[in-house]
């Protein structure tokens, strides 16, 4: 989908039924910009079902995105939504959360948005342990700009900017997030939607920085150049490659080569959350001023 394109609302707004995800959608903004077979809508829906489960309030929830096909999700969500600039969603979200700790703050980002241009903000957000939930849609490419290589394209992957095969390794984004200090780290796929929903739900309730990598398919740009072709095949491929953390535990790195380890990968509730420790500091200052 070309950058700058947007859907024009010409459809009749559908009647929102409180117990479906339509409750959280600007259905009048449909049709959405995503290609047929794209996994971004699936991941977004998993997030919205998690939101329904938790009963997130529209007025108390702010969803911030960067730039990319994945980040376009915010244009359809009926929360306070910020479609920010490329790579900086977490920096915007940091300002929002610090100014209003009572808001539930969610960040939607892509692998280019979150791990390339926004990589520095990602590691610092992990380190700060602010209570923000980040969902990174990993489709292994720059979808919006037409299939260029992303840090997650992987060795040997093809992209318009890697016509002879990409020769750089990728990040293990979850290990990166954990090492940087995220206190909740999980991975799911657009095939395992129930698991993904649960991981997102638990990430939102986790009091600290939650990082959820959602591995998903971009049939148009990545799938065009890399096997297997076609959305169904790509989803099947995700299913075959996915392996739960439990199962993966006893396996060697060689055996895990090319597999996608899913599930809750790391959780630590002992680290203080930033808005809470900031509030305690304010309290200390107030007390010493009173004395």
């Amino acid at each position, binding site marked *: 989908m070309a950058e*700058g*394109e*947007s859907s*024009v*609302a010409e459809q009749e707004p559908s009647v929102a039924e409180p117990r479906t995800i339509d409750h959280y959608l*600007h259905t009048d*903004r449909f049709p959405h910009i995503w290609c047929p077979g794209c996994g971004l809508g699936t991941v977004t829906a998993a997030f919205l079902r998690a939101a329904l489960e938790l009963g997130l309030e*529209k*007025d*108390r929830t*702010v969803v*911030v995105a960067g730039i990319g096909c994945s980040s376009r999700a*915010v*244009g359809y969500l*009926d*929360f*306070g*939504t*910020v*479609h*920010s*600039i490329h790579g*900086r969603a977490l*920096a*915007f*979200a*940091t*300002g*929002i959360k*610090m*100014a*209003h700790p009572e*808001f539930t703050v969610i960040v939607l980002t892509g692998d280019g948005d979150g791990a390339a241009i926004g990589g*520095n*903000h990602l590691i*610092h957000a992990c380190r700060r342990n602010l209570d923000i939930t980040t969902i990174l849609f990993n489709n292994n490419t720059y979808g919006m700009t037409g299939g260029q290589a992303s840090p997650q394209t992987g060795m040997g992957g093809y992209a318009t900017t890697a016509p002879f095969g990409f020769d750089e390794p990728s990040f293990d984004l979850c290990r990166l997030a954990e090492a940087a200090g995220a206190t909740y780290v999980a991975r799911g796929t657009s095939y395992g939607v129930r698991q993904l929903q649960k991981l997102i739900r638990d990430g939102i309730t986790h009091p600290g920085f939650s990082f959820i990598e959602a591995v998903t398919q971009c049939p148009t740009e990545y799938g065009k150049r890399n096997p297997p072709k076609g959305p169904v095949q790509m989803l099947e491929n995700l299913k075959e490659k996915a392996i739960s953390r439990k199962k993966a535990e006893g396996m060697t790195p060689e055996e895990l080569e090319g597999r996608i380890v899913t599930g809750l990968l790391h959780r630590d509730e002992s680290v203080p959350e930033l808005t809470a420790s*900031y509030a305690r*500091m*304010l309290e200390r*200052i107030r007390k010493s*001023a009173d004395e």
Partner: protein
Amino acid sequence: MELWYTHLMRETIDQDSLLVQGNRACALGALDAGVRFFAGYPITPSSEIMEVMARELPAVGGVFMQMEDEIASICACIGASLTGEISMTATSGPGFSLMQEAIGYAIMAEAPTVIVNVMRMGPSTGRPTTPSQGDVMQARWGTHGDHPAIVLAASNVADMYRLTIAAVRFAQRFRMPVIVLADEIVGHMRESFSPEIAGRYRLTSGDFDFTETYIHPEMVREVHPPHELGTLIHPHVTGLIHDETGFPTNDPKKSEQFLRELHDKVVHHRGELCLYDVKNVGKGRVAVVAYGSCARSARAALKLAEQEGIPVEVLHLYTLFPLPVEIIQELARRVEFILIPELNLGQYAREVRRLAENWTTVVSMGRIDGNLITPRDIVDRLAELVGKYESA
């Protein structure tokens, strides 16, 4: 002015004569103006602003964040601003360059915030502790696309205080980022100062009381209503061209209308936005137009020139953009030439020239060796020019 008082108590020896640094005065102005969110990244010669904010903001229940870079700093400020918080950041050239994309976002999304740029010599690392006014055009045109800009320039410690207050108020009222330019001299200089001193500086443009603290914005027609996240409206904020609903549009008519509105809200309020002071109105055959630390030299040069038989009019600009078109054109009709001393190669002189050239000659006096332009330098140049124009 209660806040002001508490902030200074800690270091007050004699309350009537305080020696305050320019950067510090800027931070105090911000606090008095209601800034309650500051995010920044250290850079000479602006760091003292963030250091004061780090100390003082928590005491008033505000948020101070040291971010990982200047991009994150301004983005955090915009994020806080979108929730209705009054935010500010401060930096110098290299950091200001990093902020440009987000400044454009704040213009597009109509998110008020204040960016203080204590200019250093550039390009690149340049000379960090050397004064310069090299970022004037970057402040006007640094971000991409056709966009409006509000840019103020501080010439002394009192200005750092009051123009920061003005910047906050303009930002809130016009719902856009406002840039305050200072140079290293102004940022690092210490002068005796109090809010009363700040109030004593009268402007010819007169309708702005700097001792007044922040007033909630009254909405004018051209200014879009604020989008406060976390309200019952649950708005959508985007850097894409959007219509009045806040959602993106590709409609050519609506796109143009939106972009024009962004400009119009500034241009239509030029009278309110253009802060300036004229000395010797109508008494000089020649004029000096100056801003920042050079304006100080220009004011001093006025007396010196008079003693030497050159009556001169001085236009001291506190607002560089929007351009004070009418003020400059009126001046141009009165004088034989306009001299513009600035610590760059004539960035603002070029702007004045295109406004004034139908009526008068505009002479640029640029200096880029890192030294000041002194009152003597200005008078000498005036004498040269007067000689030249009289013999011609």
